């Protein structure tokens, strides 16, 4: 037996009130007796039972008490186990650990409550029943594979913590369902705050899916956006952009401050209507280096989104060396991009360039650096030119590649292109039926983009995608270029790390002070443990840099439990299981009505019957 909304049990507080009212309302009849002695003896003999019988003898009172008990229990949404629905086999527990689970519910957080429920579920397992635990973070994490060791499950659950990451519980549920063995009769148990509209792709009416909701409704004001950008048309001025959402039923006035390392730069009072969002952009007059922190003072139950961070890194100037004869279009496209210093010196690389572009000229051996090759190939890479192609047609390109982001190659006219045979390690970004047309190569200290045709022998430079392609390439080479003046990521997102030195490892110091080491040889060089809001310090050899991780998620800032589950009452703040339970509130509501009817009859009887 469980209850969808046990808060309704507060109605049971009426019981002593009713008893008190009856005790007050009793009309005592004064009766003369010759002596109290015998009565006193009789009362002493039955002292205990008399007090109870005095009340029990009052049928109306009993009926009223029964009606209140039945009514409160009915409103609490009792759910009885469905016959035969107890299930066997193992359980896959999905424990919501997204940021909204850090909302305070009194002295405990939603995650604490959820963990208690999960521990209850473990305690309810029969001997031999197995359980796996999936932690719903930004992406699902298998915290504990199937085990029948209940002590291990309890230990793992006690050690689990909620993250600062936004997340979609649907993904974790999908992952849990993929682990389910239907023949074994596995059950899936989700313990969550339900602070989302629905579980996409999950049918909660299935008998083997159980949902336990924790948490209650709270108003919340949080920062949902915080970023910097270079002022359009200006090289050295910046704008700050901030967005604050009010997820509440009343309008609020929230003080906002943005401070740099040397003090407060911006203070504002934001008046935000209920359910609305206030956004503003201002010229940034603060320092253009170091940490920046935005904070609102709310005192609400979810402090995680009351602050946002950024590490202000001014856009760096990118030195581009262009080699080749017919580079007019490339030069013009590069000149349209901000922050570039272009040189057209021919000859070998001087080593100070950030990016080198070779247009139809053979490059030297490539050891390190960022290189773009048009209609040429590097001599030291496993790429063989097998001929020339006349008027190749682009048959496909990788739309998900950051190099071709917003770049369309459809209908591209190419007069002539090299026919290439790439070896292992090359990533083909675009290709014709006969040969790859755009490829990338990445190794430690070396990034190469190879375009198999000369832009002048195609209409590529005449397309809007051409300067975007070059901008994407420079961004791929130098991620801090152009768009990342304020170095920040959302919690849970991987952060690409770059190492300009020959250091063999990179260390990251998390906001809580813990250190993580990454091998430079790791091709991905992505730091994925951005599960905390705050500043991260990256140490690579003698160089240090910082970046910030923020929640800034409108969906997580909306901490209102709103997952709708069909059934009696609201599941807010309580525990609700579905699937293997049957609601019995109509039965209890019927009993309550019957009790009230009977009470009325008892009350009305003496009024209809003349007293003797």
């Amino acid at each position, binding site marked *: 037996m469980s209850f969808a909304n046990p808060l309704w049990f507060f109605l049971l507080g009426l019981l002593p009130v009713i008893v008190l009212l009856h005790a007050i309302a009793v009309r*005592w*009849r004064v*009766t003369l007796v*010759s002596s*109290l002695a015998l009565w006193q*003896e*009789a009362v002493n003999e039955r002292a205990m039972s008399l007090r109870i019988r*005095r009340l029990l003898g009052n049928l109306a009172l009993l009926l009223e008490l029964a009606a209140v008990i039945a009514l409160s229990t009915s409103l609490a949404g009792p759910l009885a186990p469905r016959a035969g629905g107890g299930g066997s086999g193992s359980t896959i527990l999905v424990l919501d650990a997204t940021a909204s689970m850090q909302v305070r519910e009194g002295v405990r957080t939603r995650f604490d409550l959820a963990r208690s429920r999960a521990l209850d579920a473990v305690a309810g397992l029969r001997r031999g029943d197995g359980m796996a635990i999936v932690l719903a973070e930004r992406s699902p994490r298998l915290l504990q594979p199937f085990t029948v060791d209940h002590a291990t499950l309890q230990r793992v659950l006690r050690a689990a913590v909620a993250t600062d990451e936004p997340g979609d519980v649907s993904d974790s549920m999908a992952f849990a369902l993929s682990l389910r063995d239907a023949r074994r009769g596995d059950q899936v148990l989700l313990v969550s705050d339900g602070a989302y509209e629905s579980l996409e792709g999950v049918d909660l009416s299935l008998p083997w899916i159980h949902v336990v909701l924790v948490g209650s409704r709270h108003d919340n004001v949080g920062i949902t956006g915080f970023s910097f950008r270079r002022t359009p048309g200006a090289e050295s001025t910046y704008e700050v952009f901030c967005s604050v959402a009010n997820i509440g039923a009343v309008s609020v006035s929230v003080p906002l401050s943005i401070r740099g390392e040397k003090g407060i730069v911006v203070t504002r009072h934001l008046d935000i209507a209920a359910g609305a969002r206030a956004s503003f952009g201002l010229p940034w007059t603060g320092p253009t280096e170091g940490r920046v922190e935005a904070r609102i003072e709310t005192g609400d139950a979810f402090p995680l989104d009351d602050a946002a961070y950024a590490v202000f890194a001014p856009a760096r100037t990118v030195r581009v060396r262009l080699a080749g004869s017919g580079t007019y279009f490339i030069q013009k496209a590069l000149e349209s991009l901000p922050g570039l210093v272009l040189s057209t010196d021919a000859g070998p690389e001087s080593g100070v360039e950030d990016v080198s572009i070779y247009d139809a000229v053979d490059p030297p051996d490539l050891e390190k650096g960022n290189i773009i090759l048009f209609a040429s190939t590097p001599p030291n890479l496993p790429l063989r030119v097998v001929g020339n192609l006349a008027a190749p047609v682009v048959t496909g390109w990788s739309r998900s590649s950051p190099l071709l982001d917003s770049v369309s190659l459809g209908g591209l006219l190419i007069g002539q292109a090299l026919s290439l045979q790439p070896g292992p390690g090359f990533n083909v970004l675009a290709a014709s039926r006969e040969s790859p047309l755009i490829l990338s190569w990445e190794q430690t200290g070396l990034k190469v983009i190879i375009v198999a045709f000369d832009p002048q022998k195609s209409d590529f430079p005449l397309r809007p995608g051409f300067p975007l392609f070059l901008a994407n390439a420079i961004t791929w080479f130098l991620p801090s270029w152009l768009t990342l003046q304020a170095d920040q990521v959302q919690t849970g997102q991987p952060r690409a790390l770059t190492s300009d030195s020959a250091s063999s490892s990179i260390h990251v110091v998390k906001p809580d002070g813990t250190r993580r080491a990454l091998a430079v040889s790791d091709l991905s060089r992505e730091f994925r443990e951005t599960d905390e809001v705050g500043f991260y310090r990256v140490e690579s050899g003698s160089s240090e840099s910082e970046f910030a991780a923020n929640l800034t998620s409108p969906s997580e800032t909306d901490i209102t439990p709103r997952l709708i589950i069909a059934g009696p009452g609201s599941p807010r703040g309580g525990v609700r299981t579905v699937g293997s339970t049957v609601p019995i509130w109509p039965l209890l509501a019927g009993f309550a009505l019957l009790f009230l009817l009977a009470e009325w009859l008892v009350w009305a009887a003496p009024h209809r019957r003349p007293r003797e």
Partner: protein
Amino acid sequence: MMDRVLFDRHFLQTLDSLSFVARRIYRGDMRGAHASPRRGTSLDFADYRTYQPGDDFRAIDWSIYSRLDRLFIRQYAEEEDLTVHILLDTSGSMSFGTPPKIDYARKLAAALGYVGIGSLDRVGISTFAAGLGGALAPRRGKGQLFHLLDYMSGLRAGSGTDIARSLEDYALRSRNPGLAIVITDLLGVPLDGYRRGLSALRFHEFDIVLVHVLDREEIAPSEEGYLRLSDIETRQSLAIAVDRSLLETYRRRLAAFFDSVESFCLKSRIEYLRAATIVPFEDVVLRYLRQGEHLHSR
């Protein structure tokens, strides 16, 4: 004022035929109808004794002398009067009931007094409650009957009850023990206080008849519900929810009380009669008391 025409003619005629009989033989003051320890001149042979010089020759039994050749004197029993003490409880609890128990008790006392006076006995009445109340000294003669009725007409029930002290005091003060008729409801505090009082009478050579007067509501209370019971004597109250179960407990307690009284009286050779006010008092006198040892037809 109590109606002097208490009894109808037929009842009085029946009372005239009754007289008290004591288990013990008491020394009376005057000649009467009851056996006396003295030897007297009645026709009832009592004993022989050896002739002593000076004895009346007329008392010598000559037939024995002819057979035994010794002189013996025939002795005859003396008949003297009996003192009847009527002790009437006038405590507040006696005003309870319909009719009030005190009225019933007064009629009973009057009837018994009439019997005593008609038997040439000396009849006195004394009331008691928290202590001894007024008293009408034991006298004989028809005139005493009117004194008796006048006295009882002024009686009112009212104060508390201390049976033990009252009867002890009476036993100590009384010079002529005789038949003590105690008419009471025995409802005092403590409930077993009657034992001390009756024992005191017994120790002072009283022959005792205990008439226990009770009202129907005391024997079988019928009211249920939320009752604030008020003690008619002490005015103390007790608020209880009375249901059948509690009534049953009360009846059980009352039965135990009756048993203890009966047991005590049996051991103490006290005649005990329980009289409910719903029973006509004439029946109590003519049927139930007559079945006892102390009221006989002449």
